[in-house]
């Protein structure tokens, strides 16, 4: 098994006819993801990805005609919140929003609508998720992965690739890698992903890649201490040397007045049984030191 994406994923790509949407849809399809539909208003009736994927005007039509059960959104920031709402209202259960630059207040009503509908939104401004050997949704390069049983969850993009590549190079494969996104308002938190991993029988170790700012890593650590005590766990926190009060690109990466510091996160993670790496390359070694065998 795996979480969020897998062989059962029947993916709709919202914004499939855009430059980014098409590029990544192609990469997802090449990886083996079942892309059953594309959607771009006004382009219904066309076919995308060399004719292999039907394009619809509305998500409702795509769902009705193809049984799509997950969606990946590449719609520009101005239309992305609406795209999420359309997916939710049309019965899509798992939605990945890759779009970056969405004003934070636009997402406030959207995440609430997602919650009320009992759907799951990952992102926005996230790289997506990959269940190696099964499916990838989003923009994580497929080449960094290896099939396996370590669950990876991260706030950032390229840093995740770095960490996953290090694992793959060391022969450690992943059950699912999830990038939750670095925006202020996101649909799925570290804790949400840990809960999913806890219920996944094929995930036998965990890697958490956090950043300074906020308290999401601490919250996740506290939960893991109680519910994931028995499996090997490693972590990495970016921004240990970032100066206070400066915003390092990610909205999350700002520290003020001692809260959200790397030190507080490292302490919380270590207290919860995570081995915390000083560099992404140390993660494989720390997993093994924590008892991971594969």
């Amino acid at each position: 098994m795996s979480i969020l994406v897998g062989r059962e994923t029947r993916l709709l790509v919202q914004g499939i006819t855009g430059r980014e949407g098409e590029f990544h849809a192609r990469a997802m399809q090449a990886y083996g993801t079942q892309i059953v539909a594309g959607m771009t208003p006004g382009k219904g009736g066309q076919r995308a990805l060399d004719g292999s994927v039907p394009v619809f005007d509305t998500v409702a039509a795509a769902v009705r005609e193809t049984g799509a059960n997950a969606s990946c959104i590449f719609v520009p920031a101005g239309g992305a919140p609406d795209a999420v709402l359309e997916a939710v209202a049309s019965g899509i259960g798992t939605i990945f929003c890759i779009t970056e630059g969405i004003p934070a207040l636009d997402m406030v009503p959207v995440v609430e609508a997602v919650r009320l509908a009992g759907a799951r939104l990952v992102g926005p401004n996230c790289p997506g998720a990959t269940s190696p050997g099964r499916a990838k949704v989003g923009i994580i390069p497929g080449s960094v992965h290896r099939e396996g049983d370590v669950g990876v969850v991260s706030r950032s993009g390229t840093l995740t690739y770095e960490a996953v590549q290090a694992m793959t190079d060391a022969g450690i494969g992943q059950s699912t890698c999830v990038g939750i996104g670095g925006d202020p308002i996101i649909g799925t938190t570290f804790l949400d992903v840990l809960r999913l991993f806890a219920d996944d029988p094929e995930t036998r170790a965990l890697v958490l890649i956090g950043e300074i700012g906020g308290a999401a890593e601490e919250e996740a650590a506290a939960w893991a201490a109680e519910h994931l005590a028995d499996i090997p766990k490693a972590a990495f926190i970016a921004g240990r040397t970032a100066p206070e009060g400066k915003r390092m690109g990610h909205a999350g990466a700002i520290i003020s007045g001692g809260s959200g510091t790397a030190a507080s996160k490292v302490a919380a993670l270590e207290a919860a049984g995570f081995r915390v790496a000083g560099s992404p390359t140390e993660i494989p070694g720390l997993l093994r030191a924590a008892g991971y065998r594969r």
Partner: protein
Amino acid sequence: MKIQEADAKGLLLAQGLPVPGWTVARTAGEARSAAESILAAGADRVVIKAQVLVGGRGKAGGVKLAGSADEAEAVASAILGMSIKGITVRKVLVAAAADIVKEFYLSAVLDRAARRILLMGSAEGGVEIEQVAAERPDAIVTVHAHPHLGLADWQARDLAFRMGLGGQLKAAVAIAKGLVRTMHAYDADLVEINPLAIVREPGEGTIVEKLVCLDAKVTLDDSALPRHPELEALRDPDEEDPADALARAAGLTFIRLDGSIGCMVNGAGLAMTTMDLVKRAGGEPANFLDIGGGAKADRVAAAMGLILADPKVKAILVNIFGGITRGDEVARGLIEARAQQVRDVPMVVRIVGTNAAEAAELLRAARFVTAATLDEAAAKAVAAAASPGSGA
């Protein structure tokens, strides 16, 4: 984006909030004439406040009272040009000194954990809220605006009662709702009034008590600035590092730091990690620089220009994990940038991921120093910075 007090007050006023009048002065003479008008209108004293984007200006001597135009000129003269946390004061706000009965604190902020707008109030205004939060957390009361319905009147009333503002209920409700309205109108992620104060003002033949916003702090969501072009004008060019403006124009995220190793990375998390590893290898990063996803050659060249413009930079570390970004594009940008480089600074390049093989070939042909891992790249860059002339 942070904006200055006077601009923040302007936004609040535009949303109908009660903000006493003010004037912005750039010279002591302007401050003097502003003070003259205010004193002539009946005020006993004026307050003169440094307009800078850093906190703690009161402690730094950037906020003073004056009882006469002469005194106002002298005070303004002392504050203008003063350096507060490294920022030179170029403007002051001049306003009538309020006759304060009691000070409160009220703010609206985007609460990431709860994913909704949080209103935070306290009867202990005029001091730093972080201090109140640390010392007497019970003195802070909060309420979340509903993510779909907004801040209801009853929530604003409830907050006001708990803040001890039951005697100014209508005004407090209007202000609390105004803060949320201000957040939405300008896509602010923070709107803070400290102090929110009950002041005495001359009314119709008598003294009346009024609830007013005596200070204002607003920070704007950078992601939303494209839809508020008028707010871009509030960015203070005096206070901004010229490099920031260049970076913004080129689509880069750049933060100048104190070290000697220039960093160019794609992705914020990886960029922070690169800084961390430079430090771990014994070096000091000269900057945080995220070239973003899908960076093309021209953006790489612009980034290189920004790094080299910093004379402290003694070595450059380029770390690219290609996903959306294509490694060969970055390599071409680097080769081009080096060709135009006036200053000979050693460079260590690591490019992995999408089109890494093509990139490696280009870099090899151009005789760049490369590294396979990030740790290795950091170590090489630190070594290069330590022994000038040893690099590329």
